[in-house]
Every structure is written in C-alpha cells, then in structure tokens.
C-alpha cells in the first residue's frame, strides 16, 4: 500500500487520527496512563504498554464476496471510535481505486480498535483480508497473525463457495470461529436456513451464530463481545526475546518499506537493532506504531500486539511475507514459514512502444513493491521487443494489476494470452543437459518443447468448490465436463443448495470459467478453488496466424481435445475484433504447419467521408488526427494492424456456446 495511493478522498473521508485533536477519534475509555494520545503536536507517540496480552485480540473477518465484510469492518471502526460515524464510511479499509470501483478487497489492511468491555480495556486488532479466490494466499498470511475469525455469511445468499474455502483456511489454522449472519434486515433474509447450513457443513451449533445487520448496525456490539469472549488472547510473553512475524508490507516513497508485524514475543521500539531471519540483514528500527487504520506511532509494540515497523528497508523483498524479525544477537527459532505466493497465471507484458520500456519498468518496480505476489521475469520476443513475463495469482489479480498500472502509473501495455505453468518431462538427453534437469516448467508458450523430446506433459490442477441452488446442477455438470473436470464430491447443504467438488485442469478455469458459471446460474452459483498438484495431459501448442504471420500474444498451450474448438472460436472472435483494412486478412489457427481453422476478414472497399466542405474541415481534421494517434498504438503483425486491446477482448469475452 503506497501512500501515493491513499487518495484525497481517503483523507477527506476520514478525520484523520494522525491529525491533531480530532475529537471524534478519541476513544474516551483510553486509560489515563496514556495521557493525551492524540496530542496537539500530532507527532506524540501513543503508549500502549497498558494493554497486557490478556486484553488483546487479533482477528480477521472472512466472507464470500459481497456478504458484507467491508461494511462490518466500517461499523466496528465506528463503534470503537476509530473513525467518525458518518454515513459516508464505505469500504474504509479498501483504499485502492480499483478496490472501490470493483467492490473488492485486494490488499489486506489492519486497524487497531480500542474497546471497553465489563470494565476492561481491550486492544482489538482487526486484520482485513482480501475477498477473492485469487487472493487466498493473502488471506492465509493474514490469518496467521490472528487467533480467531468472524465468518460472515449473507442471510439471503447463505453459504457460498468462498465461505467454505475461508472456513477451512481458518479451521486448519485452528482459529476460533465466530459465525455471523449478516443482512438480516433484507426482505428475503432467512437466517434460520443459513444457521442450519452452518451447522450441517461446519459443525457449529446454531446458537453460536450472531444475527446482525452491518448496514444498520444491528447487533454489531454483540459481535465485539463475542470477539472478546470467544477468541483467545495471543499466547506470548513480553519478557521473551523479540519474535515478530511480517504478515504484510507496503512501500512508502519517503520512508521505504513499512512492514506489518505481529509480535509473538518480546517488545520492539525505535533504536532497536533487528535482524531478518530470512535475509540475515540487520536494520535499526526508526518507528513503530499501530494502524488506526492510519499509522499512529507508539513508543513500543509489545508481545501479542499487531502494528507496523519502519526500519530503513529499501525494497519489499527485504520484508518478505512470513519472515521473522528478531533482535540483533538474540536469535530465535523462526516462525513456521508461510506458503510462498504461487502464481497460477502467467502472461507476457510489453510496452506498446519500446521507447516506453524504462517508464514501464519503473512503474512495474513500484507496483510490485506493493504486490509481492506478482512474480516478474525479464523476457523478450522478436515481435514484441523487450518486456516481462509476469506471474499472477489469478485472472482477476492480473486484471487488477493491469488496471492499477493504468490508473496509478498511467501506462498502457500489451498483455499476452494468459497461460498456466505447465510442465514437461524431457526425454531428450540434449535438452536435459541444456536445462540441467529432466522436468521443466513452461510459463511461456514460446518455450514449449516439441513432443519428440518429451516423454510426458503435465498440467496443473485445482480442486474447485461450487455452491449452487439445485436447479442449476444439470447445467453446471455439463459445464464442468466440458472443462475436462472430474467430479469428486456432491453434497446437499440444505434442501435447496448443493455443494459440488470437481478436479479441474487449471487452464480450463483460468480465463472465463467463473463468468460462464455466473451466467448460467443467473449469478447464484459461487466458485472457489485450491491447488491440487499436477496431472499428465495431452498438450499441444496452437498458433494464431494473421496472413500467415504468427500472433505471439495468442500462442497458447492447450489440450489436444480442445484445439479445434478453441482455434475456431479464437478465429471468429478475432475477426470481430480487428477492423477491416485495405487488404483481405486470413485469420488462421495452426498446430505446427497444420491449419485447423480459418476466418477471412474482407478488405475495405469504400472508406471515405462523402462531404468535406468549409464547415466540415475542422471536425474532420480532429478525427483524422485522432486516428493517426491511434494508428501509432496499433500492434502490427506483418502488415495487419491490430488494436492494442483486441487480444484481451478476444480472450476475455469467451463465453461458452
């Protein structure tokens, strides 16, 4: 999270807790010992030593998309006086433009809340998590700083695929789970049915569910009380040596890396010399504090607390997620590592114009500073010049990344067709020697080794969970079979809803599966997936040709069974996406030298404006100049000009026929 991205709207919306004496932000129950935490200097540090481990709760809210996670977070921030109560608090923790536009959370945020319950002052650390299947890795790393979760389920929609996935993440991490049924104010709300689903699927007794309306604030207080009662305080001791887990990091242009940390032991303050267990690098702490949700410096952070740290780290890679920090000369056993972010989707990214390479490079560097889950490898191609091959967590992640690049850095790029990480087991001794190993991972179709030198190709698979009203089961089963998926489980979670589990080849769901599922179920079915290893597959590389010249962006590795249909489909779509030109264009799909599909785009025969007299000229010239500008941005394949977004359009709108 860069400060640059904290938009004006964000500051305007929140009477910032860092600004002097914003009375609405003053938690009135702050103990006298901490004096005036938001003193007029605005820089004076908060003392949070008065919060012993027993009065700390670290928790997260997890939910299916749109079930009200961000709204509940807004209410919790309001009730605890962390932010002013106004009706403008919407998605307060979602700071990115793309998050607000799409109503999703991409980047985890944290906020420390002060709350008094039965005479005890509590420090509640809310660790917000991303809410999309692509970001399940980010969810897991946020959860590792928690002892419990609030599991929010929509009273109308009931349990959805992501609810299931999130539940298991929390369950496996052995966290306390507080089920909350949200949106009980809605007309069609059926909390009883949802409670039964929760009991059946998660084995949580009905009476443990809290019925709330986050929008109206109903019962939200009760949720806070449950957090205090049900979630155990962190198990750790300030007297122990420092042991801090890095669970997120952001980049600030002035101060460098800001690491979000959870203290599993000891304490930390300015001046401490610390060491990264992963890099062994040494740093001096410049600043520690809590997030409210803006940074609020404190004198110290103590065991069990969650906050941030600035220590002169220049790159986000120095504050790797899952890393453990300890005091210089007081090493500790590092905390068990996280799963490292594993990209599921790869795509080439190239500047539209090679002279933009350096600008794009610096934009990429800055953006990846905040999104360590994107992997970046330099890449170059004959057709596209110098660029990169990027790895993303999923297609949404890729779109979000691209959108941020455009919105925050004002750059435009060529993205190639997304591909998943295939593997090939090599049989050719020469190739094995060349690669230094027998099994290689292919993240770029250009590197697809020929069948003759391969004993077996492997493709990644995922275990997908689908939750749907029963009336769509038939169509969904057909869709899954069409995607080469194998059914693993089918369970009625109540009289009307079914949970299906399928083993999918990853490439079959990467681009458009979710959209297809949504459209055939009128939006009712939900989907989530988890990694399920590799399986053998009959793979081939398919090229798309325009007048005989391969379109590098569209080269794809696909399953042999899908080649003809996909080739035909891509050709048809491309025909619609490319404007007519001065000559005929043959659009072909080819496997090796064999053409498997063809479409023909006829030449323009007439394209000239009829009238161009005195009064028409200004308007005419404006249009022509815009077209000339547009022409400079076109991608040229042979002599064919293709609009920059044509390929993405071709790939994205793929709908099942």
């Amino acid at each position, binding site marked *: 999270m860069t400060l640059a991205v904290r938009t004006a709207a964000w500051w305007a919306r929140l009477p910032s807790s860092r600004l002097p004496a914003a009375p609405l932000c003053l938690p009135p129950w702050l103990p006298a010992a901490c004096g005036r935490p938001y003193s007029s200097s605005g820089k004076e540090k908060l003392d949070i030593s008065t919060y012993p481990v027993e009065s700390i709760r670290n928790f997260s809210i997890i939910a299916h998309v749109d079930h009200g996670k961000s709204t509940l977070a807004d209410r919790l921030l309001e009730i605890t006086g962390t932010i002013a109560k106004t009706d403008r608090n919407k998605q307060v923790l979602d700071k990115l433009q793309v998050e607000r536009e799409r109503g999703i959370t991409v980047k985890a945020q944290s906020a420390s809340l002060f709350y008094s319950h039965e005479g005890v002052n509590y420090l509640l650390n809310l660790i917000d998590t991303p809410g999309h299947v692509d970001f399940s890795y980010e969810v897991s790393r946020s959860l590792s700083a928690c002892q419990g979760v609030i599991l929010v389920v929509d009273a109308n929609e009931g349990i959805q695929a992501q609810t299931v996935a999130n539940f298991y993440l929390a369950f496996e991490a052995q966290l306390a789970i507080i089920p909350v049924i949200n949106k009980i104010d809605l007309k069609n709300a059926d909390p009883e049915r949802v409670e039964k689903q929760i009991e059946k699927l998660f084995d949580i007794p009905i009476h443990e569910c809290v019925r709330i309306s986050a929008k109206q604030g109903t019962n939200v207080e009760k949720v806070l009380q449950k957090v205090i009662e049900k979630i155990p305080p962190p198990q750790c001791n300030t007297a122990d040596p420092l042991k801090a887990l890095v669970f997120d990091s952001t980049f600030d242009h002035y101060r460098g890396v800001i690491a979000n940390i959870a203290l599993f032991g000891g304490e930390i303050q300015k001046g401490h010399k610390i060491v990264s267990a992963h890099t062994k690098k040494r740093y001096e702490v410049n600043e520690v504090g809590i997030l409210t949700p803006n940074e609020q410096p404190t004198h110290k952070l103590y065991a069990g607390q969650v906050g941030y740290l600035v220590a002169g780290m220049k790159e986000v890679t120095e504050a790797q997620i899952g890393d453990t920090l300890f005091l210089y000369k007081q090493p500790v056993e590092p905390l068990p590592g996280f799963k490292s972010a594993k990209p599921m989707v790869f795509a080439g990214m190239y500047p539209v114009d090679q002279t933009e390479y350096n600008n794009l490079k610096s934009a990429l560097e800055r953006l990846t500073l905040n999104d360590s889950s994107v992997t970046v490898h330099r890449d170059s191609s004959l057709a596209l010049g110098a660029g990169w091959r990027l790895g993303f967590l999923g297609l949404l992640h890729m779109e979000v990344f691209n959108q941020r690049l455009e919105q925050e850095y004002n750059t435009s790029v060529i993205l190639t067709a997304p591909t998943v990480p295939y593997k090939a087991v090599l049989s050719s001794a020469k190739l094995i020697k060349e690669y230094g190993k027998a099994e290689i991972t292919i993240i770029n179709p250009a590197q697809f080794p020929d069948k003759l030198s391969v004993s077996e190709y492997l493709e990644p698979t995922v275990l997908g969970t689908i939750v749907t009203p029963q009336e769509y089961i038939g169509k969904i089963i057909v869709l899954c079979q069409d995607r080469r998926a194998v059914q693993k489980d089918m369970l009625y979670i109540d009289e009307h809803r079914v949970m299906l589990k399928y083993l999918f080849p990853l490439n079959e769901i990467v681009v458009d599966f979710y959209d297809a599922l949504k459209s055939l179920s009128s939006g009712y079915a939900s989907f989530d997936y988890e990694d399920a290893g590799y399986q053998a597959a009959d793979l081939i590389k398919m090229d798309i040709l325009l007048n005989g010249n391969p379109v590098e962006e569209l080269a794809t590795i696909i399953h042999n069974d899908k080649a003809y249909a996909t080739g035909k489909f891509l050709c048809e779509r491309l025909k619609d996406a490319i404007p*007519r*030109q*001065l*000559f005929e264009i043959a659009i072909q799909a080819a496997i090796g030298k064999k053409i498997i599909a063809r479409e023909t785009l*006829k030449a*323009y*025969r*007439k*394209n*000239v*404006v*009829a*009238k*161009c*007299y*005195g*009064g028409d*000229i*200004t308007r*005419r*010239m404006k249009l*022509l*100049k815009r*077209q*000339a500008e*547009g*022409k*400079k941005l076109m991608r040229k394949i042979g*002599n064919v000009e293709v609009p920059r977004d044509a390929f993405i359009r071709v790939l994205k709108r793929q709908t099942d026929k």
Partner: protein
Amino acid sequence: GAPCPQWPYCRKRCSYCNFNKYVVPAVNEAAMRACLVREARTLLRLSQVQSVTSVFFGGGTPSLASPRTMAAVLEAIAGAAHLPAGAEVTLEANPSSASPPRLNGFRVAGINRLSIGVQVRGALSRPVPAAPPVSPPATVLPSQSLDDTELQLLGREHTAAQARGAVEAARRLFPGRTSIDLIFGLPGQSQGAWARGLEAALELCDDHVSLYQLTLERGTALAAQVWGGTLPAPPQDLLADMYQTACTMLVAAGFRHYEVSNFARKGALSTHNLSYWRAEQYIGVGPGAHGRFVPWGEGGCSREARVQTLEPDAWMQEVQSRGHGTRRRVVLSPLEQLEEVLALGLRTDEGVTHERWGHFSPHLSLEAVFGAPGEAAELQQQGWLVLDGGGLRCRREGLALLDSLLPGLLCQLQRG
C-alpha cells in the same frame, strides 16, 4: 478570397441533417441582411483580400431569403474588394423555393450558378413520419431526389415532380451552371433501384453532379431510427457497389470525377468548392460559418481557422456591436496547415500539387516528406497512391479508401 455567406434558416428540419440551422416562425430578413452585409465588409477588410474569386450562399436554406438580400451582400463584397464579372456566385436552392420567377429573381440579383437538391441543408421537410417505409420502394421512379417515397424517408417536403420542375427551370436560367445533389445508401435502397434512379437523373441533369453517400449524423431522426433498429443499415459492400456503379455511369456520361463526391463535364467544376480542397483562403460570413484566412488587416500573419457564432440572434447582436460575430479563432500551425493541405487535396483528382505544397511548405518538398520509405511508399506500392511530377494524388481505387490512407500519411507527415 472566397466569401461564403450563410443563411441559417429553414422551414422544416430534414431527418438526416445536422447542420447549424434554425426553424423559426418569422425571420427578420432586413436585420439579417444588414448584418450579413456588415460582417462581409468587416471580414473582407480584415483579410485584405484584393480580389474575390467566388461567392457561395449556403445555409440553412438560402433560397428562402429574398433576392434583395443576395444583391445587398454581393454589393457589399464588390464594395470591399474586386469582384470580377465572371466570378462564380452560387446559391444553394431547394426545389420548393425554386419556382421559375424566384430563380429569375436570384439571377437578376447576381447569382450565376445554382446547386439544387436533396442535400440543400435542412430544407423543407415535413415532420418525420412516425413509421417510415422500411421496405425498399416498390415502384421504379427516377433518381434519388426524384423518388417520392425516398424523399419522404429523408423528411423532405418537396415531391419528385417539383424537383424535376426545379431542375428544368434552373437549367433554362443557368445553362451549364446548374448542379444537382444525389444521395445514395438510404435504408432499404437496392442497387437496382439506385442505378435506375441515377439513369433518370442523368437524363435530367446539367454539367455538375454531387453524389453523396448518406451519412448518418448523430442527433438526426434518421440516424436514431437506423441505430435503434427501426430502419435497416445498408451493408458496407452494397454501398461500395453503389458508389462504384455511379462513378462508372457518370464517367461514361462524360463527367470528370474531380473530387470524391463531385463530377463535372465541360469544365463546369465548382470554383468555390475547389478553394476548400486547395486550401485557399475563404471567409465565412453568417451564423456558424467557418473560414480560413490570414487576418492581415489586424496585424495577423498566420492562417487562422475561424468560426462565427452559431445562434442567429446572438450572432446578429455581435455583428451590430463590433462588426463581426467571430466566436473562435485558432491560429493554425505550419504542420496543421500542411495536414489540411494533404487531407483535403487528396480528395481531388489533381491531388496535392508540388506548387501548392511548396506554397505552404517552402523548405520541405513533397518528395522529401513522402518520397522517403514509409507509409506513402507502401501505399504507392499497393497501388492506392501516386507521387510523380504532378504531385501526390490518389488512384481511382485509392480515392474510395482515402480515409484509410490518411491516418498513415498524417503519421509520416508528423515525423517529417
């Protein structure tokens, strides 16, 4: 210098027209006349044009104005600059305001060329029919503007018979100097119907024909119907066929295809319109009129793009208070001037001559810009374009595709 006074009023709105025009119950013609006269004088003085090569009364529907107005404007022009006796003075006329006595009145007032037709902007239409005919006209009637069903579709008020009568009367009064506008690509129109209509028009016409593919303009009733699906959009290939057929027929009938949409025989080219395509100076007079000239008279030394205030009453007030109603003045950079020279010149059969290019670009020749390897060379190789001793111009096949050629040529020009 080529003044083009605009008469902004129409009696009704045509379904395809998006020009700056006004349908008002009563026009204060005397005031309008005084203002046109005054603005013509002011702008001619500003331009310091010595000799006027042509005058074009456009609109609106200028044939609704009285001959007195034309006479007064012409008198003002002749008073401010030299107006040679043979200078082309065109009036856009509408069949329903083109009775023989009226036309004679215009002739007496000094008009010596007439442009009649469907394309007279925003002429006398009736309100657009609620459910216009979707199927092509069943009966075979003569030319585009001469077919009642099609006239109705275009929202025109006059009938085919009226149009024919007007053309015949005009030819008697302005022999060799009557132009007709024809339009093709109407929703539902077939290739056969168009060819037959054109044949009939050829029998009727004089020595100048303007041939327009119907352009659907945003904000017009016709466009709304086509885009809304009430009327069918003609297929691209059919439009290309219609254009080609028409060009072939007109050339066979002795016409020179001298601009994308204009044809003339016996040398009856429109001097005035050529001045646009040759990027000469022209002076827009009247509400919403556009001009291109160097305002030497007020110390300017660069060519400017000028637009007069659109709304007639506001324009009149401005003219009354400061002599002219110029709303926008934009100095055209040397590159912008060349872009216009190129984009407009290539619309003509003579293309952009070396001489004209040199006039706007004394230091960088046509060859220097377009002779080097690049877009122009490629387009030449593909047979759309020619660069030779005459200049840079489109081949016949290229002319129909000019809008696909221009963006690339503009890129090359910008680099050069």
